[in-house]
């Protein structure tokens, strides 16, 4: 479980995150949603240690990310798997080498063990025949799947996904969403997904944190989000006519 307590982040004296208090549960897909510029990505980057928050604490199963020694800090980082918005695959490496990279750098596994683990991870994301291809030779959806395979290579306790559906068609988005959800349940990991895709919210969102202008504005489940009377949340959820019609019918069914 990850707990965030009174987190503040400033850029050039401007408050970007303000008093964020929330928790992300184990074995669940925890979604962070909000409009562009609301502070979702900054929160995610604080969680994975790329930004240091000015105030507050982030507890990884009780271990404060900002108040531990260098060794333990690195250990927490090695327990994380991160799927970046643009996949962030290493261009100079093949798909297989990308998946093997964390194993090579952070474990003492033999070449055979690494090959087996990479093959397992690639099969898990339904890419059994892409080992020797380079990132430039595969589609956007495949890149995301390779990035997921790389993220789970070290059996992470925490999985972070920054806008996993960006730039993907609806069908591929659904495949990626379900893959993330399945992996979360299968390995009982704490997954945090940063998104503004309402389809993802309804499909895989076990818990949802809505960020508005740098504040944690609302927290609940994907059922609760359809019935909330929070104006800002409703503005976000029912932003398009299509969403209004679709979610209204879902509401009625419930």
């Amino acid at each position, binding site marked *: 479980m990850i707990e965030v307590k009174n987190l503040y982040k400033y850029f050039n004296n401007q408050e970007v995150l303000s008093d964020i208090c929330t928790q992300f549960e184990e074995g669940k897909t925890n979604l962070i949603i909000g409009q562009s510029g609301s502070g979702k990505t900054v929160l995610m980057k604080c969680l994975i240690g*790329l930004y240091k928050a000015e105030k507050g604490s982030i507890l990884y199963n009780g271990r404060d990310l900002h108040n531990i020694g260098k060794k333990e800090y*690195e250990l927490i*980082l*090695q327990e994380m798997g*991160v799927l*970046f918005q643009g996949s*962030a695959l*290493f261009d100079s490496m093949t798909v297989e080498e990308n998946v093997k990279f964390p194993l090579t*750098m952070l474990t003492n596994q033999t070449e055979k063990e690494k090959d087996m683990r990479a093959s397992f991870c690639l099969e898990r994301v339904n890419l059994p025949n892409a080992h020797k291809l380079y990132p430039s030779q595969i589609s956007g959806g495949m890149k995301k799947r390779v990035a997921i395979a790389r993220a789970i290579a070290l059996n992470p306790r925490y999985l972070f996904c920054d806008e996993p559906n960006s730039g993907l068609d609806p069908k591929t988005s659904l495949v990626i969403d379900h893959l993330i959800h399945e992996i979360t349940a299968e390995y009982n990991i704490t997954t945090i997904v940063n998104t503004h895709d309402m389809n993802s919210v309804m499909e895989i969102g076990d818990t949802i944190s809505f960020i508005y202008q740098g504040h944690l504005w609302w927290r609940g489940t994907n059922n609760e989000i359809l019935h909330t009377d929070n104006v800002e949340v409703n503005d976000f959820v029912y932003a398009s006519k299509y969403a209004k019609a679709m979610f209204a019918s879902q509401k009625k069914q419930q």
Partner: protein
Amino acid sequence: MKILQFIGEYILLMRKVFEKPKKMSYFRKQLADNIYELGIQSLLIVSVISLFMGAVLTIQTTLQVESPWIPTWTVGFVVRQSVVLEFSPTIISLFLAGKIGSHIASEIGTMKVTEQIDAINTMGINSASHLILPKIAACCIVNPILVIISIFLCLFGGWFSCKFMGTIPPEQYFEGIMSFFRAYDIYYALVKTFVFAFLIASISGFCGYKTEGGALEVGKASTQAVVNSSFGLLLFNVILTQIFLG
């Protein structure tokens, strides 16, 4: 003020760069790859430049010392001294600052803007050391070798112009390049090249690592890497010449 900030940030980054690599076996593999990419792939162009530089230098020197009071072999001597002390270490390093510097800055800059460096950092790996240290080590190993090759090819280019263009008799040229040889000059040239190699790789790595934004910024970082490393190289050329020969 900006220069001080640049130097300060550069020193801070270098402190991160010179941390022990996470995996020595992987570092050795990266080192070999970088020696090939940054060194071996520069060999052909360095050879071509050196041959022509040597030939032109010999022709021009001959024109300058055409006097009955100066023996003909002086041409060979002057060419050798110019090549060993300045032309090969400095001109070839300046050329490498353009070729290698832009390569390093654009490679690392692209990795930065496409979040590949963030990906390395979130694995708990020191990305500065992982990416920049093998490049610095590769340049420091391979550039002095390139300069030695360049010295030989420059002198060969000079001989070629004597033999086939009739600049001066080749025997006189040989006599000149064998006269008053000091091993210290070679030592000076190699130390200079080593320092230049460090400056080229580290400044270019720094420019790439600090890139923020997109493709435009990667281009700017690449240009900045060439300009800054060339400037650093010229500055240290004066300092080192004063220390070693002054």
